[in-house]
């Protein structure tokens, strides 16, 4: 897998969240028209995998779709994925110190230890240490 989409409310704010708070790096930043950029981020540990921060704009979606999608994202409807780390307690403490909002602290589950956090738009993710 090389690309995955995350629908965000605002690209600038998402860029700040994913780079400055969550610690990813910008991979591509290509201007595509007035309000839209092709903006992807990724981790240095997994080169070749890009997360595409797609803004929900009327440039890209029909008006009604954009409105509906924004509402759903804001409500926290979408669980987007799992970030796996070496040590979930350490990563949790670090991200919390940087201002990432967690909805569940690291908790032991049968599949590993997992915490849940939200991005600045409302998308949520699992931060997990498997085994």
């Amino acid at each position: 897998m090389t690309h995955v989409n995350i629908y965000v409310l605002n690209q600038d704010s998402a860029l700040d969240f994913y780079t400055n708070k969550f610690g990813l790096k910008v991979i591509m930043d290509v201007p595509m028209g007035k309000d839209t950029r092709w903006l992807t981020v990724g981790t240095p540990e997994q080169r070749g995998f890009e997360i595409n921060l797609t803004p929900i704009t009327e440039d890209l979606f029909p008006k009604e779709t954009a409105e509906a999608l924004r509402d759903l994202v804001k409500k926290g409807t979408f669980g987007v994925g799992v970030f796996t780390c070496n040590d979930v307690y350490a990563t949790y403490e670090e991200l919390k110190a940087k201002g990432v909002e967690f909805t569940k602290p690291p908790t032991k589950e049968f599949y590993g230890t997992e915490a849940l956090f939200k991005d600045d738009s409302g998308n949520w993710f699992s931060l997990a240490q498997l085994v």
Partner: protein
Amino acid sequence: MHHFVSQKFNGNKNTPKMITEQYPRIYLYRRLVQAKLFIDAHYLDDIDLDNIADEACFSKFHFIRQFKNIYRKTPHQYLIFVRIEKAMELLKADIPVSVVCYTVGFESLSSFSRLFKRVVGITPSTYLMQQQIIKTQIVESPLAFIPGCFAEKYGWLEK
């Protein structure tokens, strides 16, 4: 301190078991995380890693071992990693190699180039040149950098 905290918590029968197990670990983690954040913030200074261990209240060897357990790199390796990552960012922004070298905390151009090449696979000057070419190409033909399926879906192909 470690013992003090765990005894205090174990003494309270109403405390959930999870907390009694996690609290001392979290205390340890916070100190290691602070050490990592210190490196993130001061990577360009002449960081003395012994000082970081002292500030985190660890013996040097215990500190290095614990740090490596979590981050899979020793503090020194991590510091180099942060500097090289930052160097790549600055080179992408078209900053000359010699400026980047000192900006990210290296004292000699040759040791910077050698380390950069070891980590990234090419020298800083080649990397800078590649990034300049990519940037020109992005301006000239942006669609070449976007997977066609996305470009089509977003209606960028006709523009």
